[in-house]
């Protein structure tokens, strides 16, 4: 039996009329395409990125509270938790455990989430104004589970990290990380399903609620 890889690729080459010469031109074309990284047509960007991000987030059923500084975040999170009658214990990305959570009356552990954790607090790599989307990258200190397993996801979003579109988000990853991390997750509101009678239900397998604490001066 011929090797499947060779079989499939050689049939593709045959059907495309591949020859040694046009393979050379073809390779040059794909290198040029990869080099150009050409963007497609884009909607006009709104001047006020932060306002656009907040409006789109709310349209996707996230909630937003604005505070000035990082240090104000624990109190804002505590307010949200009290208003929704949620438990006062959460898991968070390790880079966030330095904030004064206990001062706000919360118990926050810096670790990956398991199936029993009800609240996950994360930062973002950046956020996308066009669609109201949070971008989180996997990594040792930024476990993907924190924004996925708990019923409530709370994200701290520095205003300075809001970029216009997905294109700028990819450019920022290339610039700051070099290669892509294992998982780049774009999150746009609480998980949802419309499978039963095409009726929208928030909270399918992921969070029921996404709350954004916007850090205006960060």
């Amino acid at each position, binding site marked *: 039996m011929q090797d*499947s890889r060779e079989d*499939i*690729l050689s*049939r*593709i080459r045959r*059907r*495309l009329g*591949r020859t040694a010469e046009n393979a050379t031109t*073809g*390779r040059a*074309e*794909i290198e040029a*395409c*990869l080099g150009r*990284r*050409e*963007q*497609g*047509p*884009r*909607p006009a960007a709104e001047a006020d990125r932060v306002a656009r991000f907040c409006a789109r987030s709310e349209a*996707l059923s996230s909630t937003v509270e604005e505070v000035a500084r990082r240090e104000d975040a624990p109190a804002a999170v505590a307010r949200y938790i009290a208003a929704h009658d949620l438990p006062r214990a959460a898991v968070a990305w390790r880079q966030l455990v330095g904030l004064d959570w206990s001062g706000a009356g919360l118990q926050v552990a810096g670790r*990956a989430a*398991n*199936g029993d954790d009800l609240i996950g607090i994360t930062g973002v790599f950046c956020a996308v104004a066009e*669609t109201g*989307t949070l971008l989180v990258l*996997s990594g*040792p200190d930024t*476990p*993907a*589970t924190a924004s*996925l397993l708990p019923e409530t996801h709370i994200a701290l979003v520095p205003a300075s990290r809001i970029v216009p579109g*997905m*294109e700028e988000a*990819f450019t920022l990853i290339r610039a700051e990380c070099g290669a*892509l*991390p*294992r*998982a*780049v*997750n*774009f*999150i*746009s*509101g609480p*998980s*949802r*399903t*419309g*499978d*039963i*009678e095409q*009726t929208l*239900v928030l*909270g*399918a*397998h*992921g*969070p029921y609620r996404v709350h954004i604490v916007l850090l205006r001066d960060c």
Partner: protein
Amino acid sequence: MQIRSMHFKARAGAAAADRALQSKLATAKGLFVDGRRRAVADIDLEATREASRAIRNRAVENLDLWLERFEQEATRRGGQVLWARDGAEICRLVADIARRHGVKKAIKSKSMLSEEAGLNAALEAAGVQPVETDLGEYILQINDNEPPSHIIAPVIHKTKEEVADLFARVHGKPRKTEIGEMTREAREMLRTHFLSADMGISGGNFLVAETGSVALVTNEGNGRMVTTLPKVHVVITGVEKVVPTLEDLATLMRILPRSATGQSISNYFSVLTGVKRPEDTDGPEHLYFILVDNGRVDLLGGDFQDMLRCIRCAACMNHCPVYQTIGGHAYGWVYPGPMGSVLTPLFVGIENALDLPHAATMCNQCGVVCPVKIPLPELMRKLREQQVERRLRPWGERTALGLWAWLARHPSLYALVAKLGVRYLNWLAEGGDRIRVMGVAPSWTDGRDFPAPEGRTFRELYAKRPKT
């Protein structure tokens, strides 16, 4: 999946007479059609369609080179790229991987290729428990592996009462009647599977050649679970799903969710690259890509190459008057609606799906909404031509067309027959404007009336025109 496309006529007839199905399809049609129309209002739709068409063409026209590049990049990041010629080979490869890693349970995110291959049955035979985790697919699986009737809304044909009965029976819990409660019950049932599975199986919306990544679009979050929690992740996708760059992904993500569900963006869009890094706390340790032919390669360089641009958004079926009337099951295989009417005959054999290219009004709604501008009616017409060339049409139809062709070459005889024909049809209409039962071809009027001719033939009217 078993092919039942040859029973199209009987099943379409039954579906068209099914009042309950009609009401479900009507609701869904409203939501999908209006949703898309609202969602595309804030982008330059035509420019984005044209750009998306160009991106997909660029990939398909140098498919071998893009796949080689993808393979190189994916391998460099710890993924293993495997190739499958057909469904049987997909099943064999997945069973081998499961055996190698001692897998007992596999959680699955939606994959139409897994339906093509009948993968769940193969996994069970290999001693692996497959668990569908997309809510719709889960409902179908616990209902004796019922086939889906739509590629993105698999249980569009079920009412919440049917789902409530099914959950009460299978879950053994008090019957819920509210959709939110039923969704929570399924979430709880599936949570334990997510946390205990050793393998995740997903499809792939796109493969990115630049980075060797797979891009996944989901709303429920199950796709993220399947690709984050188990130690092994297997991606099964068609060879045509490759796109060049991350910028191309950004463009396609402006049009895919809008075309599919009327969302400006899907809830979760994940770009996954390589295995868990040594210092990471989550992610799979083993990553396999199974790149599948199963009929796709044969479309290259021929009349149907345009079909390889398809990004599986389902806009064509959502807007199709035939799909809106009969739903997805009548089409008899994995892909319903206009894209299915083209793909099914090409994948399973033109002789096994004779009616599908005719299941169209040629209104071109599908062509107009297609985000990658596939000329679907034209492709259906080409399939019809092939049926005629291969003498696969019924004897009566071939004879009638032969007769018509002969007649059309004899103008005066043609005029006479047309004249008599018009008189005959007017007589059938009994002075009204519709014909209830078509005398010579009664099955034509089984489900509809035939409009009666206005009066005389064109040539009669033309001969009587005032001379100047």
